[in-house]
């Protein structure tokens, strides 16, 4: 059984590189979207097990996307993957139901992220 992952990032190369990295592992089915709105459409078609979400996105931002997902029951687990360093000033990750381990600051070690994804999915 494949785990369904969704990558939302407006940076195309991050999106594709991360997708390539994760697709190499047989147990993941990876989809990606460059905006939160598009991702929501895609998720409404088919839900995901975990979303890797950038914070700064073109229209709806990452935290907002996570909230909507939770409300609509589109996805249960999320990982924040952000290039900004001061996100804690405006994002309270605890209210999003996340912890520090769910936050990855770019550039990060993809292997560490992989481990976290597996751990989260395993625990659920």
């Amino acid at each position, binding site marked *: 059984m494949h785990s369904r992952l969704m990558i939302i990032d407006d940076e195309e190369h991050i999106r594709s590189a991360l997708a390539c990295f994760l697709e190499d592992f047989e147990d993941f089915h990876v989809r990606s979207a460059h905006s939160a709105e598009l991702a929501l459409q895609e998720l409404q078609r088919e839900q995901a097990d975990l979303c890797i979400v950038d914070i700064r996105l073109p229209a709806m931002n990452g935290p907002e996307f996570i909230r909507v997902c939770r409300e609509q029951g589109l996805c249960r687990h999320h990982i924040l993957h952000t290039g900004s360093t001061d996100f804690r000033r405006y994002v309270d990750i605890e209210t999003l139901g996340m912890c520090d381990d769910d936050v990855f600051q*770019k550039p990060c070690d993809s292997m560490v992220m992989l481990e976290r994804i597996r751990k989260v999915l395993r625990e659920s």
Partner: protein
Amino acid sequence: MASRKSLFRRLSLSLGLLSTVIILVVSTLVFFFLSWRVGNQMQERAANTITFLAQALETPFWALDRESAAAVAEATSMDVNVGLLELRDSRGEEWFGYNTGNSLFIIREAEVRHDGQVIGFIRLGLEDSVRQKSLAGIGLAGGGIALLVIIAQYCLAKRLLRHYFQQPFAALDSLVGAYARGNYTQVDPGVYYTEFEPLVNAFLGMGQTIERQVSTLAESEEKYRVIFDNSPVGIFRSTLDGELLEGNVALGHMFGYSSREDFLASNGLRVEPVYADSSAREAYLRELLASPKALSREMKFVRKDGMYFEGVLTASIQQDADGRPVFLNGVVEDVSARKQAEERLRQSEEKFSRLFRLSPDVIVVMNMTEGRIVDVNEAFSRLTGFAYHEAVGKTAQELGLYTDPAMREFVRRRMQTTGQIDNVDFSLGCKDGRTISCVLSSQLLTVGDESCVMAVLRDVTEFKRMQELMIQSEKMISVGGIAAGVAHEINNPLGIIMVSSQNLVQRTRPDFPKNIEVAENIGLDMNLFDRYMQVRGLYDFVKNIQDAAVRAADIIRHMLDFSRRSESRRTTCDLRSVIKRATHLAGNDFDLKKSYDFKQIEIFWECDDNFPVVSCTETEIEQVFLNLFRNAAQAMASAQPQIVEPRIVVRMKAEADRVVLEVEDNGPGMPPEVQRRAFEPFFTTKPPGVGTGLGLSVSYFIITRSHDGQMRLESRPGQGTRFIIELPLSGPGPQKEDECIHDS
């Protein structure tokens, strides 16, 4: 008062009596004249009647016709005046007799003759009653007239007297009455009789004179009253035995009374209670009695509210006509304000003299003419090293205070032209040959009668350093600001590099199942590919890409430290254990590339007893000390010639409101230009890749911004470097641990 007799009445009465007497005398005379005349008339009548009878009776007597004679006699006796009528013949025979019996006034007898022959006798008597009646009538009429005249005269006199005397006198009386009431501006009372004119004029003149004198007196009194009332000093008059007779408003105010009346009514008019020392008055009076003049004495007085004040009493004795001292007249002046002013002046003088002596700025006073030093303060001696006695009397040039001769010329010219210098940079020469950066301000000053220059020199060494640090700090803050902005933009590409290079690593791995599968599908020998990668060093390139990305990410993270204040994760820290941990971390940091071995370095601890706990963010302070230890170790390791016994001294000193932490090495030290830039971001003396140039900047930032402390360095090339960190003390209470570790 006994009842006075009325002149007017008297006068009226006197005039009445006088006229009565005159009228009575005149009436009496008239009466007597008239009665005389009546007597005469009756005698004439008697004579005429008897004569008539003698003639008329001649014939009857001759003819002895008794009847005719009786008829004649009868007819005559019909007259009311006739009281007695007797007719007799020559023989004496009575022919006729008539007698009323009433008293008779005149009796006449006549002979009736015929041819010379007496033929009969006639005796006639006239009655007195008729005469008396007429006289009574005259008397009554005269008396009545006289009475009327007297009454009329009395009334007239009274009226006239009233008109001519009583009214003028009343007018004069009202004039005098007005004067008596103090109204001297009277007009002519309207008495137009010559006799009164001098009197009226005299009275009016008197009124004017009095008015003039009264107004002069009032003016004079007013003048002195104004002086008395408005005098700022208290004026009084009292008896020698202490009864207050008079006092002015100022006196009242001085003693705390709202009005003069209030003052005069108080104390039962006694003066003794106002003297703070009750014997002072007696002593003063004794002195005054012995002195011919007024005396001034300073005394302490008591106000109404019981407060004391200093006053100067000046008084003199006034004697009575017999030369006995009776009154004390004088003034009291409140000098407490003056005394306070004097005291303030004295304090001010003391303050300024203390200010001069203890001023942290150097103050030098020189005379204008020769430039010789007149006075210097303690800061001067402290800064230049010249003691007071070494400096005074010398010129600034002799002492070598001017390091730049042009400056001396500039100062002299400026003082002569404008008389003032404001904040001019000045390099001050010291006794030991050092020069100190100062700012000079000077002004002209008159000391005694000598024109002097007062020069104030402020040591700005510290200020300049602070200024440099401020600039540094500003630079770092701006770096932080930029960093926060660009971090996101750089992190994204770094993320791409990172993931992509990791993908490269992963997809070239010969043991990765997916790679093997894809290689098989295209007929690639994975082992051969792996060798190719190794031989061509492609793995290394990929590794380098990854390292570079990590390094770049590190730099970004450090840069961001500038923009971040520590998020109040402050705890009370035992700084010694924090620093100790930093030494351990530095010890584990042995790195071939960084080419030093921390364990070779000896660390000395010099720690004050009772070093307090300090509120700080432990990890940050640890980072700062780790940085300092690494820098020290790297500097000592790279020193040429090599340092034989590298050592680091850690000093921990507790002061009143702060702690001072020092890290001192015996390394090569820093040249001045490096010292200046040591805290600058991205400034490094290490080879590329070894240092980012951010360690000290971040440390500086942590100390100054996150911990409100200070950080500075002292270094001399060849003698090592000392970093000094000062942290403010917020949480009091000495540290409980026993002792500091020395020579660990």
